[in-house]
């Protein structure tokens, strides 16, 4: 019995070279994060304050969202509320439709991924162009992101070269990342200029000013929102921070945690619509408020989507984003998937050795591993427990509660050492696929103690 994740992971690992590259490259990002965080002596205190601020803001969401709305309206923005993905998609569509928009440019938004905005709009005849380079590559390949910050980390330069040759007319066989990036710059520049509306996600929404803050390295959010006069921004309710002082705490941690940079190249604060333009802001729930009622998992709402838990996760690095069944992979994705729909996304709960590295790397102290442990306890109730693990656990319980049975097993165990290999090393034994079984001792410690051999 194995999960969808474990099967997909095994396939991922079959391409040894690519799998090793994936692991080493993401580990390098983790190392850059370590170097940067260690240059900040107050790092651990920053984590404490970031966590405390999120616990405050997520327990005062009603007040802070209303404060944000009031300030944003006073700034001249239109504010909308969307209960779910469907309502969010419809609000975006209606705004675009009322303005007769056919060409629409977007910067990266995990909320749009979550709500499947692009297919929704495309079905209604609106052309959507992703402007983040990684997202654009994936859009042209008809693929989904495999990492929330480094969406195309699983794509090789040769694939990008062949794609751009077809889509942008680049030189055949030129796979140089600088050449390819600059080709995309040129190509997308025209898309920015001809777009009739631009949309961004939101890293932080500041209640006290009614502004939305967007962080990018490429400048794609700003290229988009400084060309067409119609701007849309959307955010999940947990993106709210009370004020700019609090914002400072998160901005100091986001890029250091995400990519090992001291800050992203652009940290843009959108407060008012452009002169003669319009700014539309959509506040989205889509299941988040239900998490508030779940004290064991409430800290999942602290997440600022930096991706550090993915980069550090030894399982993610060796299994790739597509091995997970939820659109967000890695430790935070395991948890968010279970909070979204446990019966759909339980396959990811196996993807954790409980090493706890994610919990310590997290800048906002989401107790990621602790929460995965708790989900495992719930799987049996959901009827999704692994049968083999259940039988093994039940068997162990029976034996371990009966020392005489345990001692009997201990005395028989050495016989296993002498069994023919094919009985031990076969398809049923996951351990034996790449590892030798441990040899049982001729005499257990219990036995030796009773015989007075321990001196």
């Amino acid at each position: 019995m194995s999960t969808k994740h474990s099967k997909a992971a095994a396939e991922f690992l079959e391409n040894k070279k690519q799998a090793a590259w994936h692991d080493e490259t993401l580990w390098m990002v983790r190392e850059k994060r370590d170097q940067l965080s260690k240059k900040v002596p107050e790092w651990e205190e920053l984590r404490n304050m970031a966590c405390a601020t999120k616990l405050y803001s997520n327990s005062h969401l009603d007040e802070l969202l209303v404060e944000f709305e009031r300030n944003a309206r006073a700034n001249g923005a239109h504010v909308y509320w969307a209960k779910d993905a469907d309502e969010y998609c419809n609000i975006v569509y209606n705004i675009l439709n009322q303005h007769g928009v056919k060409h629409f440019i977007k910067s990266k938004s995990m909320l749009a991924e979550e709500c499947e905005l692009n297919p929704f709009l495309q079905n209604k005849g609106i052309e959507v162009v992703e402007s983040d380079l990684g997202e654009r590559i994936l859009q042209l390949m008809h693929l989904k992101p495999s990492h929330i910050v480094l969406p195309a980390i699983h794509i090789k330069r040769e694939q990008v070269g062949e794609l751009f040759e077809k889509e942008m007319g680049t030189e055949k066989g030129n796979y140089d990342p600088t050449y390819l990036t600059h080709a995309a710059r040129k190509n997308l520049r025209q898309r920015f200029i001809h777009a009739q509306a631009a949309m961004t996600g939101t890293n932080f929404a500041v209640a006290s000013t009614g502004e939305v803050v967007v962080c990018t390295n490429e400048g794609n959010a700003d290229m988009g929102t400084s060309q067409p006069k119609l701007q849309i921004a959307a955010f999940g309710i947990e993106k709210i921070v009370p004020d700019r002082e609090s914002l400072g705490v998160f901005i100091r941690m986001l890029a250091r945690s995400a990519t090992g940079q001291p800050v992203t190249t652009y940290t843009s604060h959108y407060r008012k619509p452009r002169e003669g333009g319009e700014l539309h802001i959509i506040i989205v729930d889509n299941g988040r408020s239900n998490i508030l009622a779940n004290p064991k998992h409430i800290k999942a709402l602290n997440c600022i989507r930096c991706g550090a838990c993915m980069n550090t996760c030894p399982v993610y690095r060796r299994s790739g984003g597509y091995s997970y069944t939820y659109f967000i992979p890695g430790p935070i994705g395991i948890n968010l998937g279970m909070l979204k729909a446990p019966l759909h996304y339980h396959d990811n709960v196996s993807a954790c050795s409980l090493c706890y590295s994610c919990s310590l790397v997290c800048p906002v102290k989401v107790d990621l591993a602790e929460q995965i442990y708790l989900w495992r306890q719930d799987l049996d109730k959901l009827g999704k427990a692994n049968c083999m693990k259940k039988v093994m656990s039940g068997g162990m319980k029976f034996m371990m509660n009966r020392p005489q049975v345990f001692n009997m097993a201990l005395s028989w165990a050495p016989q296993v050492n002498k069994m023919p290999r094919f009985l031990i090393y076969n398809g049923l034994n996951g351990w034996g696929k790449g590892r030798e079984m441990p040899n049982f001792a001729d005499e257990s410690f219990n036995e030796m103690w009773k015989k007075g051999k321990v001196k």
Partner: protein
Amino acid sequence: MKVGLFIPCYINAVYPHVGIASYKLLKSLGVDVDYPLDQTCCGQPMANAGFEKEAVELARRFDRQFEDYDYIVGPSASCVVFVRDNHGRLLKEDRHRCASESKIYDICEFVHDVVRPTSLKARFPHKVSLQNSCHGVRLMKLSSASELNIPYFSKLRNLLSLVEGVEVVEPERQDECCGFGGMFAVEEDAVSIQMGHDKAMHHIATGAEYIVGADSSCLMHLSGIIARDKLPVQTLHIVEILAAGL
């Protein structure tokens, strides 16, 4: 000071010599140590697999078994920290408060923090690479976790500094998981094996003859990899070095 020696199930069955070394080490340090008979398991394997309730009766048994001791000391950071962090919660319905959680120590932690010897008789003229186990590092704080911005420390290194002749190194990715993770090792066998292989190679790259740690579970996993791939390194529990020559 009465110490009850806690020998986890798999050490009992596979590595009894680690239990013996633990007993000898504590004795040699003048500790009054005894072994409560008929120990089995702390319940961690079931709990980590998602069957915590199967561990409740074991936690109760465990608490009773060690009720007469001032300290419980065992040679396995992972099992010890499971008792410390979880038995109290598992037994919260019981009338008696779980006593184990506040008096249980990993043997390295106990020797380092409580006994605090200034010298040992051990001699071990070899190069060893530290296997910093996840639960030892991140839950028990036997050493500083690489993720945190805190000053470097390693209780294992401090203890080994009392051993004559030993050279201590740490692998690249000093505390990355070895891929054991209990039933994770079989449920996610492909990833687990890859993690184990990578970990073993990082240890080998240091040029060490031995991989040394405070958790026999990681060492058991790495031994399985080493034996299958015939890799040029061996594993040893740290108490086997601290008790060398006793």
